[in-house]
């Protein structure tokens, strides 16, 4: 099962009245100032509105210059990972009512990646780490004329890590990554796991070698921030542990 937000016994839809909520948004525009500032916006919200709805209300009705990424708006494209009340979440998957709308809700860019403007960060370093771990099936020999067979059990072995949407919520929640941007980070390791534990793959030892680097898995301090942050409910820390274990048990 994938993650749901930790709401206390959510009330049925339609029963939550409209309310007023203040978003305290971290603003930064290098064309205007080198300094980032906080700005408060107060909007009317409906009971089931998400943080993304509130951001849209600000952008569409109040201040068009507020800048953030979004696309699918229901938690599958991974565009809108932001820090809400100090925790990494997807803005489109976080209902306002679940993050204490009685107090101002803080919304900031995710940490550890250079801020481009307002809530937008430069994702290139994140994707560069991803690309480095060979995130693709490696096979040798002739291609089969039909599909490769894989038992349901073998398929289940790496199911959890196939769910990753590359939103960077995990990597940018990691204290090791904050202080050392060279660290591969949880998302890259998750995507390595997805192939290392795929019975069809033959590139495991190469990937393990890459992750055995000083900026690899051994930098993980098992703080579990990544697991908490993952909007897809992936057991990220467990996946990292499994990669560490594979490194010890598999000869490469």
């Amino acid at each position, binding site marked *: 099962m994938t993650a749901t937000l930790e709401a206390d016994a959510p009330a*049925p839809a339609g029963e939550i009245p409209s309310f007023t909520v203040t978003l305290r948004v971290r603003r930064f525009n290098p064309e205007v100032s080198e300094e980032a500032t906080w700005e408060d916006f107060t909007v009317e919200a409906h009971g089931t509105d998400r943080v993304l709805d509130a951001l849209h209300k600000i952008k*569409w009705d109040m201040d068009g210059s507020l800048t953030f990424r979004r696309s699918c708006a229901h938690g599958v494209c991974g*565009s809108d990972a932001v820090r809400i009340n100090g925790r990494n979440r997807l803005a489109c998957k976080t209902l306002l009512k679940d993050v204490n709308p009685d107090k101002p809700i803080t919304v900031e860019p995710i940490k550890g990646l250079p801020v481009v403007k307002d809530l937008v960060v430069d994702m290139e370093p994140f994707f560069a780490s991803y690309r480095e771990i060979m995130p693709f099936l490696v096979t040798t020999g002739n291609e*089969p004329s039909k599909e490769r067979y894989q038992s349901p059990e073998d398929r289940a072995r790496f199911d959890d890590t196939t769910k*990753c949407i590359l939103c960077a919520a995990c990597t940018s929640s990691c204290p090791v990554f904050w202080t050392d941007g060279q660290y591969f980070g949880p998302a890259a390791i998750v995507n390595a796991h997805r*192939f290392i534990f795929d019975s069809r793959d033959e590139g495991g030892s190469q990937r393990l070698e890459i992750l055995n680097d000083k900026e690899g898995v051994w930098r993980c301090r098992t703080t579990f921030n990544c697991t908490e942050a993952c909007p897809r409910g992936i057991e990220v820390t467990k996946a990292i542990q499994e990669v560490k274990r594979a490194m010890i048990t598999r000869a490469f």
Partner: protein
Amino acid sequence: MQTHQYDVVIVGAGGAGMRAALESSKEARTAVISKLYPTRSHTGAAQGGMAAALANVEDDNWEWHTFDTVKGGDYLVDQDAAEILAKEAIESVLDLERMGLPFNRTPEGKIDQRRFGGHTRDHGQSAVRRACYAADRTGHMILQTLYQNCVKQDVEFFNEFYVLDLITDHDLTTEEIAEGEEVNATGVVAYDLATGEIHVFQAKAIIFATGGAGKIFKTTSNAHTLTGDGMALAYRRGLPLEDMEFFQFHPTGLAGLGILLSEAARGEGGILRNSEGERFMERYAPTIKDLAPRDIVARSMANEVREGRGAGPNKDYVLLDLTHLEPAHIDAKLPDITEFARTYLGIEPYTEPVPVYPTAHYAMGGVPTNVKGEVLRDGVNVVKGLYAAGEVACVSVHGSNRLGTNSLLDINVFGKRSGRAAAEYAKTASFHELPEDPTVRVVAQLDEMRNRPDGERVADIRKALQETMDLNAQVFRTGDSLNEALADIRELQKRYRNASVQDKGKLFNTDLLEAIELGFLLDIAEVTVVAAINRKESRGGHYREDYPNRDDAHYMLHTMAYRRPPEASDQAEGHIEGYFDHVEEFDGYKVVLGSKPVIQTRYEPMERKY
């Protein structure tokens, strides 16, 4: 301004764009330009599966699949294209598996398959298990797998670049093209969101894979970014759009939100019920019931609500009942959609039925292409070096109603074909000269928008557009409702000229781009409604209450819509007096409708019963 030169330029990095890139980048120097990071593309939101007659779990063959596709599309499908789709489906699924896609498996380890709407054994006998899937995340897995293989093949991407113009060596909006004369696509102009800089890409071949335009509607399963960019750019440059009146409303959107709940829910045994608890699809489609094609199910749902059998406090939705399924089965096969119900509506699908209502989902129409993916500039002639694939294109394999799982198939089959064709063409072609200043239109458009005096908000106009489309051009349409929509769109086009943006900056100016995208939406909504007004029959996704029957004698033809200057002829190719002769005047241009024959090979049109 920066200028680049590539053999092949692909616009869009969803399933079709990346599948094309995997082919073309092996053969020709290729760049992929995308307004999103590739993994953000909306292919990733597709859930249920990808159809292919692998016959892994029961008897099946591509001929049955072809028939279902033709019948599902209410016979407006080009049958030669549907046959290619169904035949090449098998290799396309195997391609993905070999690339690493983690399909669900049968106990023997083969790719597992499940039932889906409109897919049947032996020409409608019963539902067949044809959809290859990975839980309810098939699109996610396809998008990830294609991106992974693009990384492996070192495909070059320009991410967060918005293509805002297509360059051709003839101005198709005004020029008469002499018989036998070539028209060539020569490049595209793009806007780099991060810096605000303009880039010109000169190319021998260009593939449009920009996706759909669901944001013309308010209730939609589509992403905010699906604003019909590629369709609108082609149309503005004088290329026709085909069959735009056919828009698919997916039956099961989360009520009030439009978020997609896969048809796989019904494929796995879910049942639609009205307020009385009745399984109402038994009345509308006695043989395959809840697994009838989407147009039929969506209409049946809307009809239940209209006749007072809707559920909920406002009786404005129906219920998708999964409560008779084992929770373990739901977790294994439908984990994401059940999570959507929990997250967004606070509904527990193990024990409560889920409120659902049709949601705007898919454009059957688009930029017309032949089966190689080459874009047509009229009923016959192509634009040399221009290709389109995926939802932006109209091959037409979906006719007037697409079957579920045929879109993930479409992007793979025709993405691959267009990628190959474009690379092949680029090998023999040379670069064509670009105009003196290829950026002039785009720069003028952006400057004008940025420098307008304070006017109306873009969001207000967009909201008004989406509301009139939902009200007047949705599942049920009439001549009156469509004319109402058209009158609203005319007014909104005027208001759009005075809309202004607040962000005047260069860097990451999404305010500016939303304003540009609204222009695309208005043009696409406009042509959709004009085509819908003209088609006085009901077929597939286009249901006219004032003309409730299919009229093969007069409308068994594809609509071709052209935007022309006011002084141009009122007759387009395929003009048919009384049927395909509609002309609609606007400020500075007119929309002229013509037609194109439907290609029929094996199957005679029959009444569509399920």
